[in-house]
């Protein structure tokens, strides 16, 4: 994949493909999950052919999602480790929300908000996977007691609502911060974007002469 001259690679092709598989699964799971959660959303079952089809597809989408998310986790966890910069950034959240980003302390590849999204999903999705297995009627309906399944379905619903709330934040942030969508669709950002939103990441790339997304990946590339 070639990127426009003078730009910085924010997300590799692998990351992007991986992200959108996860995203597609998540959206379909949200639509089918909400349809099975609240009657006002039941009409969404028509998107899947019928209620029966939706019920049959939902768990398979979940299995795909968890595998896909594992790929994202492996690619992203290191840059999502919490550090001192995040505390400083979080303290300036009011300025962030007000678009006065010049006054906000610089951060690395991800800011505290993005890290909360990452770890929130990393925590909730496995819980949804496990509780989802327990209430997967076709294969595991008889595997556990009904009481266990009652607990599982309650946790599954709670977790799903949590994940959807995080997802709304994630999507809105991508719409709000211009250039983010392109970063995940086509992979690149302008140097100004990187400087404005992720200055320490930008400076690290400049210092190592790396085209992005991380200095490490370039270092490995250079060995060959």
């Amino acid at each position, binding site marked *: 994949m070639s990127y426009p001259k003078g730009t910085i690679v924010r997300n590799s092709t692998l990351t992007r493909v991986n992200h959108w598989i996860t995203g597609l699964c998540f959206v379909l799971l949200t639509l089918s999950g909400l349809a099975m959660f609240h*009657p006002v959303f039941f009409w969404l079952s028509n998107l899947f052919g019928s209620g029966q089809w939706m019920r049959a597809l939902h768990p398979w989408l979940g299995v795909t999602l968890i595998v896909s998310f594992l790929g994202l986790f492996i690619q992203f966890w290191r840059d999502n480790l919490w550090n001192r910069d995040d505390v400083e950034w979080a303290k300036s959240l009011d300025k962030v929300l007000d678009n006065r980003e010049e006054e906000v302390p610089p951060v690395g590849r991800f800011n505290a908000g993005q890290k909360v999204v990452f770890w929130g999903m990393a925590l909730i999705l496995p819980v949804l996977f496990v509780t989802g297995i327990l209430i997967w009627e076709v294969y595991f309906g008889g595997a556990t007691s009904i009481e266990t399944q009652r607990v599982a379905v309650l946790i599954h619903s709670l977790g799903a609502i949590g994940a959807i709330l995080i997802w709304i934040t994630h999507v809105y942030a991508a719409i709000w911060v211009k250039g983010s969508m392109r970063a995940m669709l086509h992979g690149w950002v302008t140097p100004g974007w990187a400087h404005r939103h992720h200055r320490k990441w930008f400076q690290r790339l400049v210092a190592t002469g790396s085209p992005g997304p991380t200095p490490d990946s370039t270092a490995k590339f250079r060995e060959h």
Partner: protein
Amino acid sequence: MADLQSQDYIRRSATNLTPPSVRHHELEVAKLIDVSRCIGCKACQSACMEWNNLRPEMEEFNGAYENPHDLNPGTWTLMRFAEYEDEQGNLEWLIRKDGCMHCEDPGCLKACPAPGAIVQYANGIVDFISENCIGCGYCVKGCPFNIPRISAQDHKSYKCTLCSDRVGVGLEPACVKTCPTGAIMFGSKDDMKDWAGERIAELKERGFQNAGLYDPPEVGGTHVMYVLHHADKPSLYSGLPDKPHISALVGAWKGVLKPLALAGLAFAAVSAFVHSIVSGPNETTEADEARARAEMEKAKRNGSAES
């Protein structure tokens, strides 16, 4: 299927609107199972299979007369046999016809996410409308009596219909019609309670001091009731729940979380929209690009100075 009409619904699963009920002079019905008169012949079990065209697999003998060993998608009613030794050391054979209790407050209906897959008619019968069933198994979690079973063939949930198709045209359920001892009676709920009262008085005369009617108020009463000789200990009868109630977990899930979650999601979406129109987009400016270019050139100069 000779279905009762939708105007007769008083409850409909996953539906926020109350169904219309034009015909409001509907008598509440009940099936009364007098355990003390049951001889365990299983005629009711056979009649149920015959009327509903069910042919469940015969299972192996496991030391008791139960066969199959549990309710299943093709066994909507099952004779359960329990051997009980009372205080005097006498053996009592407690035989109970198990099946849907047709709760006044049905947990299955409360849990069901598919609109109209579970309905309750004005006469009190709780019915599964199979064409609307999606096979999720939520009714199993909602039921306090462990009754619904999901078919592995068509992935739909099945249970006793109280022969709603027969009752709809003025006939009694098949099990009632076939019972040779009159242990199963059918009629208006009030009549059944009166009849049960007489039977209970007789049982008490015979020495069953704790004889009584099983019509558990925790689920608003049921439209299938038992006359028990040991009404103080229903669990003696192959685990009939002493105090059946819709699980608090199901209440939290369907009662509390549903509206709360909807409000939370709406709040999040509206907040995002409000932020968008108040603060607007966060855009990278030409000044940002200039600052970035300056840093990149500085780094390049330092790099070339080193080499």
